[in-house]
């Protein structure tokens, strides 16, 4: 899979992040002796690249491993295997201290703006903390940088002394974005940044993220289950199912000519806000199987309307079925 994924990893612009064959297997421990009784194959060989100033959308349903990918890249959880290259250097085996300079280059924004901010710290301290941690600025200078960040994300400087509970959901997400920007990162991993927000607030945050990308040349790994948001913000899209990427292409290709049956079903399941459009839907039967015992062969065969015998026994590799469109399916 990693070998086949190689070709797919070429981004158009010089890469900020390259990952190859990334794996994260969580052990399942049971009993008095906490013996390992198997593994949850949360991420099972994922490869992709993100170029400078590019946004890659990572989509999939709950439990497909998309958030685990985001966290494993930052080494917030330790990956089991694979290569994570930041600016050409593999960071997977680095020690905590060696990792620190790389941490400055990549930051994360979380889904829930309620639980990701320390309720006992003022908004200004939350945003300024990374500056102190990395020894970049302190005192008056730090204050100044934080004030500029507040301007940048559309919060008023007067709110720096306020505590998280005094902000609305959208404003809290802005604090999270300001914190991520504090270290001038090249890459921001956005883990469902707008899923917890109301529709009218979603638009404000999406616009802010796109403005920042344009002005600062940021790259995003945009993790979301919301295909409309991903279409709006990213240039290329990777679709995940049970720990693996099943399709990887630029967004126009994915949305106009999906190659994998799962992508096809996912797209057709999204309700379209226009009553005049009556589409014939592909309604998948059943639920996503457990990643503890994923189905043999192609993980998707249990729900796939086109599955044949080969799908049940042989794992399909990501192949380029059209220029710059990679699909893991035997039938293509």
């Amino acid at each position, binding site marked *: 899979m990693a070998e086949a994924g190689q070709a797919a990893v070429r981004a158009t612009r010089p890469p900020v992040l390259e990952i190859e064959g990334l794996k994260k297997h969580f052990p399942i421990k049971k009993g008095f002796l906490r013996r390992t009784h198997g593994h949850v194959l949360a991420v099972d060989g994922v490869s992709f690249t993100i170029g400078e100033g590019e946004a890659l959308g990572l989509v999939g349903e*709950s439990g497909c491993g998309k958030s685990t990918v985001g966290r494993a890249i930052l080494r917030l959880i330790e990956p089991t295997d694979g290569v994570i290259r930041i600016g050409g250097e593999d960071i997977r085996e680095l020690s905590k201290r060696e990792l620190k300079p790389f941490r400055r280059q990549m930051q994360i924004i979380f889904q829930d703006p309620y639980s990701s901010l320390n309720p006992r710290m003022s908004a200004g301290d939350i945003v300024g903390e990374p500056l102190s941690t990395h020894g970049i600025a302190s005192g008056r200078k730090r204050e100044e940088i934080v004030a500029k960040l507040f301007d940048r994300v559309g919060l008023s400087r007067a709110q720096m002394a306020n505590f998280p509970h005094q902000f609305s959901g959208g404003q809290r997400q802005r604090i999270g974005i300001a914190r991520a920007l504090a270290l001038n990162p090249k890459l921001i991993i956005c883990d469902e940044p707008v899923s917890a927000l*109301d529709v009218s607030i979603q638009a404000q945050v999406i616009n802010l993220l796109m403005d920042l990308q344009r002005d600062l040349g940021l790259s995003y790994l945009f993790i979301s289950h919301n295909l409309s948001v991903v*279409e709006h913000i990213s240039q290329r899209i990777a679709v995940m199912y049970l720990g693996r990427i099943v399709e990887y292409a630029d967004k126009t290709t994915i949305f*106009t000519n999906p190659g994998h049956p799962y992508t096809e079903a*996912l797209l057709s*399941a999204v*309700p379209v*806000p226009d009553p005049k459009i009556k589409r014939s839907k592909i309604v*998948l*039967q059943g639920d996503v199987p457990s990643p503890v015992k994923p189905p043999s062969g192609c993980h998707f065969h249990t729900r796939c309307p086109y599955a044949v015998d080969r799908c049940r026994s042989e794992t399909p590799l990501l192949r380029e079925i059209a220029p710059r469109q990679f699909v893991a399916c035997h039938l293509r």
Partner: protein
Amino acid sequence: MSHSRALQAKPSAAAGGQAKPIDSIAGIAVADPLLTVADLKTYFFTRNGTAKAVDGVSFAIARGETLAIVGESGCGKSMTALSLMRLVADPPGRIVDGEVVLDGVDLLKLPEDEMRAMRGRDISMIFQEPMTSLNPVMTIGRQIGEVLTMHKTMPRDELQKKVVEMLALVRIPEPAQRAKEYPHQLSGGMRQRAMIAMALACSPKVLLADEPTTALDVTIQAQILELIADLQRKLGTAVVLITHDLGVVAEMAQRVIVMYAGRKVEEASAEDLFAGPLHPYTQGLMASIPRLGLMRGESAKTERLQEIPGIVPALYSLPQGCVFAPRCPRADDKCRSEFPPYEEKHSRHWAACWHAGEGKERAHG
């Protein structure tokens, strides 16, 4: 059916047997309405003041129809549904005014024991999070059976048969086996199916679905929506669908009510509403959602989404005049001082706005 007839004959069931028809509610009139809600007001009395969670909402719904109530968090859409079920926590909440007439019976005037007899049999509700609304220490089968035995007595084996039948109706595989399982043994989609089975066990006339698919993945959402629509066709249930997702509205509803800060601001058929929203809030909502345009052959463009500035006001301190005025691009002095009347702006298209339909009437697509 026979039960409700009996109930109508009771003196409590509104004045004079055949309940007085509500002749004019502010909203689209429905021929032969099954459920009519008139000027419903649910307030919450707290230390911080009175929150008008539902403030004068009226609508009617016919048999077999799907009416969607859309709005953002805190707009009062769920409170409207809970008020119809008379499940508002009292204190602090109270239904202070209004009528909810179901098939000739004003639910708000019923004594509690008669209301309890109506719930589940005539009107029932499904909730957003099936895990927290199912009893974790009772099997699915017993929970569905409980609804049935609440309303009629039946022999045990017949009850068991009926439960399995219901589970099969909502397309749960191996229904006899699943009936013996507990909620935690089922997946999210499966639990929502069990909830639907429970809600429909007594074939109610009205089903209130409060964000039935919000907690589910898109492929499971598609399954559940299809199921609800299918059962509705089979059983002729009227569905009040409460959601914040305009996509779900467009796929499911014939008619739509848009709520903002406890009030209904617009009502129209789904087609009219999506083709030409009149209220600036509805227009803003529609312009603020990213759309899957590429799928419909539109070229890739990265235009900014339209924002609705500001945030939803706190219900304790609603602004004078139109509640949307502080966020509205068209607001003028009149909007800030006087709440606009709820009027039929076009045929069967109502809105509460002094400047309805002005500016760009955004026909999207």
